C-alpha cells in the first residue's frame, strides 16, 4: 500500500511497533524477518531500493564498526575463530554483533516510514492523539532543523579544512577532538536559533489562545485499520519464528 495514502497515525504506530519489536526480539532470525518486513513496507509504499540505499548508506560504517566491536571484544561463549591459539570470535560475540547491527538497521528503516507525508499531517495526527499542540509543534520543528544543522556542520568542517586543517590524515583521537571543537559553534548556533524561533513565534501570537482549532481533521479509513492489522499480525508471527526453528 502506498505510504503517502496511509493515515499518519498508522505510520507512527508502525514505526513504534517495528522499532519496539526490534529492541524486544531476542533472536537474529526474528530480527532478520523484521528487517525484511520493514523493507517490504518501504518498497510497497513507493520507495525504490536505490532510494533506501542512498538514505541508509551513511550508516553502513557505523553498523560495521558496531559489528566488529561486538564481535571482537565480547569474550563470553564458545570460541569460533582462533588466531595464534587466541580466541578471536566467540559464538556469543557473533550473536550479539548480529543482534546489535540488525536492531540499528531496522530502527533506521522503520524511521523511513514517517518520511512519507507532510509534516503538518503529523502535527494533526499528534494533536488528535491528545499530544499537546506545543509539544507536537516542538517535535516537528526540531525535525525540520536537523537537515539545516547537518548542512551547517558540513560548512564548518569545510571552512576549517580550507584554512589548512587536515582531518583525513590525523589519528582517530585527534579527529574526535577536532570534531568536538568544530561542533561547538553548531550547537551554540542551534540554541541561538531556537531562541530566535521562540521569539518569532511569540511575536506572531503563538499560544495566545489556549485552545487551537483546525479546519481539517484526519479520518481513519477501514483500509488504514486493515493495513495496520496485517502488519501487526506479521510482527506477532515473526515473534514466533524462533520457536519454529527450535522444533
Amino acid at each position, binding site marked *: 500500500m502506498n505510504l503517502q495514502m496511509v493515515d499518519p497515525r498508522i505510520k507512527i504506530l508502525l514505526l513504534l511497533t517495528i522499532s519496539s519489536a526490534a529492541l524486544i526480539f531476542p533472536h537474529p532470525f526474528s530480527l532478520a524477518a523484521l528487517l525484511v518486513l520493514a523493507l517490504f513496507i518501504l518498497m510497497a509504499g513507493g520507495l525504490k531500493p536505490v532510494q533506501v540505499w542512498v538514505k541508509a548508506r551513511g550508516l553502513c560504517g557505523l553498523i560495521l564498526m558496531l559489528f566488529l566491536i561486538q564481535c571482537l571484544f565480547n569474550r563470553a561463549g564458545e570460541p569460533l575463530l582462533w588466531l595464534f591459539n587466541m580466541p578471536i570470535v566467540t559464538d556469543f560475540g557473533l550473536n550479539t554483533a548480529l543482534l546489535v547491527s540488525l536492531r540499528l538497521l531496522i530502527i533506521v528503516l522503520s524511521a523511513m516510514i514517517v518520511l512519507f507525508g507532510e509534516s503538518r499531517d503529523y502535527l494533526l495526527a499528534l494533536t488528535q492523539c491528545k499530544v499537546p499542540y506545543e509539544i507536537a509543534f516542538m517535535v516537528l520543528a526540531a525535525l525540520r532543523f536537523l537537515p539545516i544543522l547537518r548542512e551547517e556542520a558540513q560548512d564548518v568542517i*569545510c*571552512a576549517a*579544512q580550507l*584554512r*589548512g586543517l587536515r582531518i583525513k590524515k590525523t589519528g582517530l583521537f585527534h579527529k574526535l577532538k577536532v570534531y568536538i571543537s568544530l561542533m561547538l*559553534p553548531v550547537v551554540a548556533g542551534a540554541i541561538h536559533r531556537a531562541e530566535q524561533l521562540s521569539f518569532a513565534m511569540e511575536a506572531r501570537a503563538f499560544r495566545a489562545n489556549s485552545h487551537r482549532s483546525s479546519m481539517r481533521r484526519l479520518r481513519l479509513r477501514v483500509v488504514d485499520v486493515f493495513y495496520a492489522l496485517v502488519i501487526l499480525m506479521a510482527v506477532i508471527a515473526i515473534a514466533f519464528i524462533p520457536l519454529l526453528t527450535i522444533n
Partner: protein
Amino acid sequence: MITVEQITYLYPHSDTPIFQDFSAHFKRGEIVAVSGKNGSGKTTLSKLLAGILQPQKGSVCIDGLSTKSQDLFEIGQKVGYLFQNPNRQLFCETVFREITFGLNNQGLKKQQATEKADYYLNYFNLASYRDDYPGHLSHGEKQRLALAAVLALGTDYVVLDEPTIGLDMLRRRELGELLLKLCKESNCGIVLICQEAEFMARYAERELVIPV
C-alpha cells in the same frame, strides 16, 4: 587561473540542474563580480570554485589542477573562501585564534602569525575584541572577522560570498580598497559574489552575470 569547464551541477533534492554546460574563467590579478537573481546559483558557483561542491559533469581547475583530485586543505592553500553566513566559519575560542588558526596550519612561526593577525585585527578594527569569543560579536563584526581570517591567509585566489552584508558604508569602502590593494600588490584573483551594483561597478573589473 581558475577555469570552470562545461560543468553540470544538480542538487540531490532537485530535478533540474542549477548549471548545465557552464564555463567561466577567473584570472589572477583581477576582481570579477558574479551577479544574478536570487537562486540563480551564485553561492553554488562559489562553492564549486572552492572545491566544497563537485560538479557531476565537467571540471573546475585551479592552476591546471582539478578540484576533484585535491583535498580541501590543499585547495585552501590556493583559494580563500568566505561563506555567506559568517557563523559557519567561526569556530575558535577567541577572535585572535580565529585568525591565527589558518596561519598556524600554513606553518608560520608563532611571532609571524601573531604579527599578521594583529595587523588584520587592527585593519578591520577588531583589536579591542582580541581575546573575546567570536560568538559574542555582532553580525557586522563577525563578518569582518571572517574576512580577516580569510584574507590573512594570503592565498592566490579569494572567493567572497556576499562580503558586504552587515558592513557600513565606511567599512565597505575600506573592504573595496583592501581588495584593490590585494589584487594589485599580491596579484591575487578575487571572485566577488555581490548584489550591490554600486560596489561592483566601483571595484570589479569584470562582471559575470549568471543566467537563470
